[in-house]
């Protein structure tokens, strides 16, 4: 396919179908994230960068036979390797042997929330999640360093990608509050049902991205000025790290939230809420600032 627009849209469809597979394999949180991130944000970001580069691809110049051979051999080796893999749904597979039983049996008693994914994410494996939040933050900074963020607030107010379309504007106006409300729900209900800071941050950013696409960059940047975003991102990481330092000051290990309340289980719950809030703020501001950086850049001919 030479049309990269088609390639990107198909990639979005692929992500959505992957989300359905995750749903089918009982991974509701992952399906949620994949649908919001893969099908939503990635597609928008790729289309924004297509606008800055070229839509049409050149026909290939070299022979694909060598790459096909490499791919074929690697694929055959991998298929051979899967013959020893545990079957799908096998309870004796190594994954289900080591720490998983502890998580499944103790999570609701130790961390005090029904959603085990959130409990493992924010409490048992809080270090990993902290690291990943920092990675997201760093990647956002890298994009800003590469592309810069121009303040387009002074440009023409009606300057938007989609021109005067009354129906679209009305529908989007009705949708945005619902999207933001849903984002908040996902953020604070993540302990009980599917959701959490990562998904909420992305959904919240989607609301503003939609606003910018329909009403123009100038309006969007009046609502959320671009200079706030890197600071907000840093604030999220600080909240996360701060909770860890507070638990150290309370005499426990870094990110051991038991000290936050007189009852350790309540303390864990507070800690998870705060940490998820930090993750949500960082993900929201970084996703939105990446979009601002891509959409605010002028196309060079």
């Amino acid at each position: 396919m030479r049309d990269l627009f088609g390639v990107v849209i198909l990639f979005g469809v692929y992500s959505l179908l992957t989300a359905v597979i995750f749903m089918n394999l009982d991974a509701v949180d992952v399906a949620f994230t994949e649908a919001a991130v893969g099908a939503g944000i990635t597609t928008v970001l790729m289309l924004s960068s297509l606008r800055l580069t070229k839509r049409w691809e050149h026909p290939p110049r070299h022979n694909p036979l060598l790459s096909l051979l490499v791919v074929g051999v690697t694929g055959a080796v991998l298929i051979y390797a899967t013959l020893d893999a545990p079957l799908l749904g096998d309870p004796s597979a190594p994954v289900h042997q080591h720490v998983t039983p502890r998580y499944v049996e103790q999570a609701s008693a130790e961390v005090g929330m029904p959603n085990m994914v959130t409990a493992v994410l924010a409490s048992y494996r809080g270090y990993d999640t902290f690291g990943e939040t920092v990675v997201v933050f760093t990647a956002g900074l890298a994009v800003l360093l590469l592309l810069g963020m121009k303040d387009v607030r002074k440009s023409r107010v009606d300057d938007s990608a989609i021109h005067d379309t009354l129906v679209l504007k009305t529908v989007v106006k009705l949708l945005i509050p619902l999207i933001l409300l849903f984002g908040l729900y996902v953020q604070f209900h993540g302990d009980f049902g599917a959701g959490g800071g990562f998904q909420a941050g992305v959904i919240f950013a989607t609301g503003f991205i939609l606003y910018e696409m329909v009403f123009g960059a100038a309006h969007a940047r009046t609502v959320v000025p671009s200079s706030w975003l890197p600071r907000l991102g840093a604030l999220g990481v600080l909240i996360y790290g701060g909770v860890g330092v507070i638990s150290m000051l309370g005499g426990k290990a870094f990110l051991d939230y038991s000290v936050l309340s007189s009852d350790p289980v309540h303390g864990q719950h507070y800690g998870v809420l705060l940490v998820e809030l930090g993750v949500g703020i960082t993900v929201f501001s970084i996703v939105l600032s990446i979009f601002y950086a891509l959409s605010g850049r002028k196309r060079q001919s």
Partner: protein
Amino acid sequence: MNEFPGLINYWIVVFLMMAGFYVVISQGNLVKKLVGLGLFQASVFILYITMGNLSEGLAPIVTEGVTTYSSPLPHVLILTAIVVGVATTSVGLALVVRIHEAYGSVEEDEIHAKDLADDDALFHERAVDAEESSV
């Protein structure tokens, strides 16, 4: 043949992974390479989630009267990996945009050709300089 339904997920993963791998190594367009990387990445996600699945298990949210759940650990790893994935992909996209601004192209061979031409010009300039200074 009783292995067949249990392993088919892995074979799909291998197929998708190789499709992504093929796109990355054979396509010259940098945006397409990033899409290929995304294909590859999603196949790894499916691999992890497949391993965490438990037959008879439910989604890992505590429900009354249920004792078997799929393992939450791979879900956690992949959930964060997806978000980190979009962040790193956008770093790639930003690089592609800058490459396009510097070279006027996102095709690998054109960028190479331009680099080689630049090198040649530089080499030529130096040779001329050296000749002049020796005279």
